[in-house]
């Protein structure tokens, strides 16, 4: 059966990187590790996390591009890497919009709340604990 598929490197071309290139990357990664430890003890205020994550992303990019050869890989593999990173980003960011916006719109007090408060005031009901609203059985 003749198949063509998505040939990314036709012929017998397999990319071989030079040893010196690998050594350079190794050196860069070790330096960046030292840098991230050092910078963790400097107070940069709001930039602390950004710097730490920035260094981590730089290191990760070096590993992905050179050790994992993505720089020399075909479109499809780049597409898969992009997919994985963007799906992770979707999960992080959309989960965060819930937690990040809990204080933006407060649910309005309902008549039930007022009635309930009335019962509390008159001593018929106990004030609910803050955590009691969590963990309701829901779901479609």
């Amino acid at each position: 059966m003749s198949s063509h598929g998505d040939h990314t490197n036709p012929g017998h071309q397999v990319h071989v990187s030079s040893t010196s290139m690998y050594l350079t990357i190794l050196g860069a990664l070790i330096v960046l590790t030292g840098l991230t430890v050092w910078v963790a003890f400097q107070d940069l205020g709001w930039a602390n996390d950004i710097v730490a994550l920035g260094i981590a992303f730089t290191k990760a990019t070096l590993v992905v591009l050179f050790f994992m050869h993505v720089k020399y890989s075909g479109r499809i593999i780049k597409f898969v890497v992009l997919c994985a990173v963007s799906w992770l980003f979707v999960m992080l960011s959309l989960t965060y919009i819930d937690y990040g916006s809990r204080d933006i719109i407060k649910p309005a007090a309902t008549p039930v709340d007022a009635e309930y408060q009335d019962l509390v005031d008159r001593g018929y009901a106990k004030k609910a604990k803050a955590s009691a609203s969590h963990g309701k059985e829901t779901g479609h």
Partner: protein
Amino acid sequence: MANGHSTTLHHHFESYDQQRNASSLGMWFFLAQEVMFFGGLFTAYMIYRTQNGLDFAVASSHLNIPLGALNTAILIASSFTMAMAVKKSVLAQRKAIVGYLILTLILGCGFLVVKYFEYAEKFEHNTVPGSSFEFHVEPELIAQYDLSPERVVTMEKRAEIFFSLYFMMTGLHALHMVIGVGIGIWLMFPAMAGKFNMDYHNPVENFGLYWHFVDLVWIFLFPLLYLLGGNALAGG
């Protein structure tokens, strides 16, 4: 088509090119899956971290930064030897492949040994989540941040969440390392038999991708878990 090929080309592929493309694409999709697998943990971490920044920083200061940094260096070095092993497998240099694989496995085991000492330390200090979990905020910190007794109690509870995440994340990472070492040992046999060459080196290449991925996870775990304490406390 049935004749003339050695056993390393599977019958349903038409050429080594196709086999290699399929194999590495499959590995990359598997790694995408791994990203999402760890991604669930990173999401949980992000949510709790953004809500309890100081609590997490305090808890994090109980981790051992020198050991964490040492392990980072060990893993990076093993990634280098792994990349070299892949390179040598393309060039079909049998002895070099075996040598670099052995180096990689030694470094991997070194990582696990360091991890073992770290975990043992946690068990000794009862900072393992569960019924025996014990965590005390240092008096200097209470004074420094002017914490109320209630705040200290919540902080101690949040610390248990931090250590739960710490053990889940590093535990799963270590499990990946153990599996990696197992695969590496299994790869030694075809490597010693000289099976790998330009046409057929996907097992080594895929193992390399897996190994680098495990390294990648650690590259993020190290600053997120170990380092966020140093700063907040030193600076404050």
